[in-house]
């Protein structure tokens, strides 16, 4: 078991967003966390990567208890967080953006970086082509690839992806998922994917988690959650009488 989340409760200031979420992930598994907004999906990732401290509960990574750890320590363990919104360091070059992905680890071993840089070049050739350009000048899709590439630089074991498809054209989304698929196959990468585009996420993942109002409503095999009436109800309101119109 790579990741074990137990009764995680988290939020901001005195606002509780996530209530007692529990789930676990095996190495090489892809888990999709879906739900409409306000459900707490992003908060889950923020709590796992150290951006916010959980209010209660436990997070275990490998054998380690990483509950409440600071971001820099968590990144050093190989947990990468791709924020929602295609964030890059716009005034630095693409190459610098990538290299800084390994900065947080503290170990600036040249060999480590070069090896990972090769990986990035292989999977995101466009980043190699544009490596000297200012990251701010990249297109949305390229920025997203850069964000993922940056995480790959730090001996990635667990990738936390926050709505990777948001703001991207469907073709790009398809391409992105293809690349992610290749990556996870080659490196047994574990991926926790938060998405609003539930169908795409569920088709890509092995298992799924449905969140609503900060609580976990459903868990199960991803296939079984697609076209699932329960899921639909959760998204569009429980107890809505459909009046036989569907």
């Amino acid at each position, binding site marked *: 078991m790579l990741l074990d989340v137990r009764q995680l409760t988290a939020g901001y200031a005195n606002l509780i967003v996530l209530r007692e979420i529990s789930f676990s992930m095996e190495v090489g598994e892809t888990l999709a966390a879906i739900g409409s907004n306000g459900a707490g999906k992003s908060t889950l990732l923020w709590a796992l990567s150290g951006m916010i401290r959980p209010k209660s509960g436990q997070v275990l990574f490998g054998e380690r208890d990483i509950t409440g750890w600071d971001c820099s320590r968590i990144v050093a363990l190989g947990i990468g967080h791709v924020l929602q919104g295609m964030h890059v360091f716009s005034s630095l070059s693409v190459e610098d953006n990538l290299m800084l992905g390994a900065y947080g680890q503290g170990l600036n071993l040249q060999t480590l970086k070069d090896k990972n840089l090769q990986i990035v070049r292989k999977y995101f050739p466009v980043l190699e082509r544009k490596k000297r350009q200012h990251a701010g000048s990249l297109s949305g899709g390229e920025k997203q690839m850069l964000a993922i590439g940056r995480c790959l630089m730090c001996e990635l074991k667990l990738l936390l992806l926050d709505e990777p498809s948001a703001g991207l054209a469907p073709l790009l989304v398809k391409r992105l*998922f293809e690349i992610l698929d290749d990556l996870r196959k080659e490196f047994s990468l574990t991926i926790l994917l938060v998405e609003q585009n539930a169908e795409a996420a569920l088709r890509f993942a092995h298992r799924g988690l449905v969140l609503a109002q900060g609580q976990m409503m459903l868990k199960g095999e991803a296939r079984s959650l697609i076209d699932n009436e329960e899921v639909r109800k959760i998204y569009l309101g429980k*107890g809505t009488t459909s009046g036989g119109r569907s």
Partner: protein
Amino acid sequence: MTSVKAPVIASWMRRRWQILVLILLILCFPVLIKSYFVTRVGIVLALFAINVTGITLLTRYAGVITLGHSAFFALGAYVSAILTVKLGWNPWLSMGVAAAVTIAFAYLFAVPFLRLRRAYLAMATLGLGEVVFLLAKDLTEITGGVSGIPGIPHLRLGRVTLTEDWQLFYLFGCFVIFFVFVTENIGRTRLGRAYHAIRTNETAAKAMGIDVQRELSRLFCFSALASALAGSLLAHFITFISPESFTIDFSFTLLIIAIIGGANIWGTLATAVVLIGFSEVFRGLQDLSMGFYGLLLIVALFVFPEGLAAALFARGYAHRKTSANDLVPFILDPSTPMNGHTRVQCLPSREKKILGLSNISKNFGGTEALSNVSVSVDYDQIVGIIGPNGAGKTTLLNVVNGFLTPREGKVIFQNREVTNLSPHEMARLGLGRTFQLINLFKGMTVIENVMVGGHLKGRSGILMGGLNLGRPRQEETVIRQAAMRSLEFLGLVDRAYDVVESLPFGEQKLVELARALSMEPALLLLDEPAAGLNSAETERLSGILRRVRERGITIVLVEHNMPLVMTVSDFVLVLDFGRAIAFGTPEEVSTNNEVIRAYLGQEVQGAS
């Protein structure tokens, strides 16, 4: 009827004991302390005190950091000096003109900077202070340059020339009492709350109808006036002025006093007495005074960040818990509509529409946030707006509210076109708003927060409000009544005097609703009212929304909590990528295929 007055006066005296103590101190001071030196110190203190009143409101209440009030102090002094010495004018007349000139200067040069971000404003005021100082040094023909202006005549009251220190002390004392009285009154009433609101949450303040720019300009001019008068008085006291008295150190000292003293005139006065008193008493060490002030500032901020007053009275804001006796009794009449003023009564009876949006488009940079959205809302309806993340729901609310102007399209509210109006103007027309994350005014109690909602029920300005006679008192009563009605309606009366931060999250959301309700709006915009609430609280909210509608208030709410929206709304608007993709009853919308696809996404062809 006279028998009624006595208890009223007695209760007033009990509540406002600080003012009485101050008056007493000022009266007795020269009599008890027969020292020349100490009386002089007292005079210097008095002059600082006058300056401090304006700064307290401006900096600690309204959050405007000013590093250049020495400019106004200097202007008051110099104009007075020049008019009396060079033109032989009457000192009182000169004082008046000096005050007028300073206010004009403040209005022309400082006020335009008020719309900048606070950091830039601080730098601008720093610049202004320096400009005046440098001009005083350079314009030697007018200001006497570095040597200054000697021979300023004394003030005269009738036939008495005020040359004795104790005479001046009493005169200055009167000014102090006046300004302290005004400042204290403002702090406790409508404008004080408005300033606090501006400082803690400017967005919400605007949504409550506060015209931020105007209120800050007036306050700024008021504080300039205080400093100008103090400057004139200084000139006639020392009978000689030079640029040395008007350096940046003076402005820093005022700022430091305000920061240490806190949002409370008594705190700042006490601080001023301690700081200035020490520095005057230990005149030999005066050069070290700025350094000591700096040290005190740093220490104070670690020990009591909310200011001295807060540390002593355990409250960050200048509010005393009013006793039950102070509440003017009111009768809660269930049949009274809560939207008394703002619902437009004189529309032709066939006019059912309260809000109409036609072809609203808005973009930020390259992204289209809203595309051609049209919708209309009838009076007494509850309309829900739903849609996936980034669909433009909050943007739509902000366009209606006036925080954003659409690139295209029109907004019609209560039969008027309001597309380009600002948030406070919309509030005046009857639009209320709550926000996604809690936008309450921290540091104020529940009832004070809710009373900010009633801001538009009053019109008194600084001087009227400061004197607190007649109309301002009535306005306070009306505002307080409206606030209590709201709190009663939501079952929060017990919490009225608690500081908002101490409330649990769910109750804070209700306070925000109460605040919007006490605006007595015709239309209420709610942004995710159920966010963060548990299921019991959400149930309760459902009921509350229906009761609000029964009171004649139309509701438009943005929500993600589907069960809530679907049960409580009459109609639902669905947005996706800035476009309106469906509008209908909850039934219709939840079974609409496009809506389902928007939420659950579509299969991306080819992914494994």
